[in-house]
Each structure stands twice: as C-alpha cells, then as structure tokens.
C-alpha cells in the first residue's frame, strides 16, 4: 500500500522534473542555422570534389602521370595529355571527374606528387540530371583563369 502511493508520487515527480527541463530549454536561444539564408563557412580541410590547382600562370600543375587515375577506387577520373611540339613536358588536354561515382576518399589527392589536385569547398551540389555531375575540371580551371 505504501509503495503504491510512493510509486505514484515518484512517478509524478519524475514527470515534473522532465517538464522542468523542457521548460528551461524553451527559453534558450535556437541553435540551428536557417540554411539557404545563412550559411556556415566550410572548415579548411573540408573535402569537396577535387579540383585542379593552378600554378602562378593559372595553368594546371598536372604532368599527366596518371597516378590519380590508378589510385581511384571507383574509376572516377579520366585524363589525357599530349606533348606539345617542341615541349618537354606532357600537357593536360582532358581531365574529367565523374562525381556520380566519387566517394570523396581523397586517394587521388594523396597520390599526386605534384600538388596538382586539391579538394574544393563546394557543397551546394544538387541536380536532377546525372550529366551535371560529370565535371570537366580543365574547363573549370580555364574559367577560373579568366
């Protein structure tokens, strides 16, 4: 009989304690960010899709060794290059990233010995078409140059 009433009392008490917690939370400021209206800055190491790093003249540092292509677990990268006439080094003619398959592991960036690729900070990537995610990175680099 005594436990019957103490159970009721303790139960009710625990309910009021819980309500006290939510009451306090009610008056605390909100913590969320209204996303499309406000955005957070991405941290320095954020890993977006990869991008070609320009040298001082705005050209790609890539020497077309193909290590990134080999390192990629999902075959996202396809690149090609050719030696210009009279030139010594190979020059990049094509660098396509198939972002639909990329899992952002960063193997390509690690494998590059020339610092030619790096992560971008882009995350606002949304589209209903698959083709929008096949990036021509060389073209992006040239656009950046302008």
């Amino acid at each position, binding site marked *: 009989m005594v436990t019957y009433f103490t159970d009721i009392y303790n139960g009710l008490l625990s309910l009021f304690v*819980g309500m006290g917690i939510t009451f306090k939370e009610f008056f605390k400021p909100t913590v969320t960010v209204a996303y499309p209206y406000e955005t957070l800055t991405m941290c320095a190491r*954020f890993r977006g899709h990869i991008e070609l790093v320009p040298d001082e003249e705005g050209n790609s540092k890539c020497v077309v060794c193909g290590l990134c292509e080999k390192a990629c677990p999902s075959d996202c990268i396809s690149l090609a290059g050719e030696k210009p006439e009279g030139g010594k080094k190979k020059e990049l003619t094509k660098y396509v990233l198939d972002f639909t398959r990329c899992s952002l592991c960063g*193997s390509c960036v690690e494998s590059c010995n020339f610092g030619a690729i790096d992560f971008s900070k882009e995350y606002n990537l949304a589209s209903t078409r698959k083709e929008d995610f096949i990036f021509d990175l060389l073209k992006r680099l040239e656009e950046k140059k302008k």
Partner: protein
Amino acid sequence: MNSPIVLQPDETFILNVGPQHPATHGVLRVKMEMSGEYIVNAETVIGYIHRMHEKMGEVKTYPQFLMNLSRMDYLGALGYSHCHVLVVEKASGIEVPERAEYIRAITVELNRIASHLFWFGAFVMDLGGFSPLMYALQDREHILDMLEGVTGSRLTYCYYRFGGLYNDIDDDFISAARRFIPRMRKSLVKYRKLVTGNVIFRKRLEGIAPITSEMCRKYGATGAVARGSGINFDVRKNEPYSVYPEFDFDIPVYHECDSLARYMVRMDEIEQSLRIVEQGLDKLPGGPIMPDKKPKMIKPPVGDFYQAVETARGSFGVRLVSDGSKNPYRLKLRSPTYSNMHLFDEACRGMMIMDALAFMGSLDLVIPEIDR
C-alpha cells in the same frame, strides 16, 4: 506484460513490418505472425541494401578499400576503419607511431559518443519522445564539427591510413574537444533527468525483452547487448589493442538483461569514452603521424589474420586471407549487429508489438552494417 496467452494457430495474422517502417531505421523487414498485439513468431528479412563489400575487398587494392569501411556503419565509421587498418598493419608488420595511435583512440571514442548519442535520440523517438533526439543531435553536432575539421568529412570518414593517419590534429581540435567534455557531462545530467528518470520511459523498458547470457553466447551477441546481460566483455579490455591499455576506464555491465540495462550500458559508455578522450588529450605524445618508412605498396605476406575491435555496436572483426598480392584473397567483415539482430527472432516471441519494437531499438541497429 508477457502474460501467458493461449494462442490458437488459426487466429494469427501476418504483419509485415518494414522494409519501410518508422521503427526499423532503414530497410529492415520483419515478418511477424501476430495474435492480436502479441507476436507469435517473427522472421527477420535482411539484405535490402546488401552491397557485397567483401567482394569489393577482393577486387580493390588495400588502400582503395579504405573508404568502404566507413560506408558499412555510417554512425560509428571510425571504429570500423580502425579494425581494417589494424589487421593490415599487423599482417604486414607496419609500425604505427604512437601519436597516430593516440589520435586514433581519441577520434574513435569521439565517434563512439556520436554514435551513442544518435542511438539515444533515435531510441527515445522509437518510444515516442521527440525532444531528446534534438538535444542529442545538438551535442553530436559538436563532435561532427570537430571530426570534420580534422578528417574533412562529417559522416563517412576516410581518415586512417596503413601506418598512420591522413591528417594531424590541430590545436582547434584539441581545444574544441576539451570544451566538449564538460559540456557533454552536463548534457548527460540533463538526459538522466529528462529520460532515464522518467517513469513512463522506465516502465516501458524495465523487464522487457530479457536476453540471458546463454542466449548471447549462442548467438554471438557482443557490445551493449552482451554487457546488458551481465557479460563483462569488451574487446578494448579483453583483448587490448592500439593504445587502450594506457587508458583508465571501466566497462559498464548491468545484470538486469532487459532493454533498460542495454540503455544504461550505452549511457554509461558515453561517460567512459569521455574519460578516454580526456586522458588521450592529456597524454598525447608528439611526433610524426606516419611512419618514416612509408611502405610504397601494401602487400601483406601469405597468411590468415584476424583482428577484432570494439566498435559502438559491439565486436567488429576483419579476417584477412592474403596471398601476398596487392589485393586481399579474402576479406571477411564480421559485423556486430548481424549477430545482435539475429537473436531478435527468438527473443521477441510472445512480446507485444510495441515492446518488440522498443527492444529492436535497444539493439542499436544500423542496417547497412548488417547487410554490408
């Protein structure tokens, strides 16, 4: 509660819970044979998001497989990566710098807290309480921000490398982690008042779904499920790996065997993980994060290797059969929830559906990790 009822076999009906059901947290399906609200029989159907990670492991080279591990369990990804790098390092005899091991331990424990916090929120939501999920996510957000600052991603990390780490931690991380610890302790008090002490919550879990230690053994249950059944088993203590022997922490064990015991184990584990993080930050040695002689190609010698670690969900093991080439000959991933989920069929017999679903929540299921 589990009052004995006489069931007439022709009075049952089949209730198809899932693959799209709010309580299954993913694409899990349970075919329940019901008599009213009581479950007569249940058959779990899994494999809806099976991706054949083990075949991928055979096709890809060792470093290429690194990122697959975090896709197994998206909530506690680092523990799984840890196991994979450990077994390969053990097999090929790569020495890991001490600093790297400390950072691994710190990040794994932070990830474990994040995973438990998410589970806590989702579990209370299974029981119908919404606000704790939001509070848990607020705390978890701090961990994700910290880990994002170091690893570059928020959920499916690809941070550990054979021999060390991808990135060193910076002062921002250390100060954020130090600020996080007292904050989390304060939150734990809040959760205790709001949820653990709540009479409705306790009444729903006390004595529900008892799992005996014998049943755990027969099914190979590990993690909080085993520890809630009075089994003192945690791979971090039983088979110490990495730098865990350096840390002073306890393994919470509860002998009630019910859903509340499993809940209490996880909540206590958050506190223990905080202790490990605290000690790890205090003891953090300097030095490199990758060995000086970084092996160019990972080619473990011929042989058969096994490594288990304690992830947020239990004992995760990787069996590596190597034939000396750059691809594994066989890579078996032993996932803890696979075994934990398996005992659901037997344990939920005779339970009411709402208790069974609360029990399912207390198992801490992550479906991609079961299906692999």
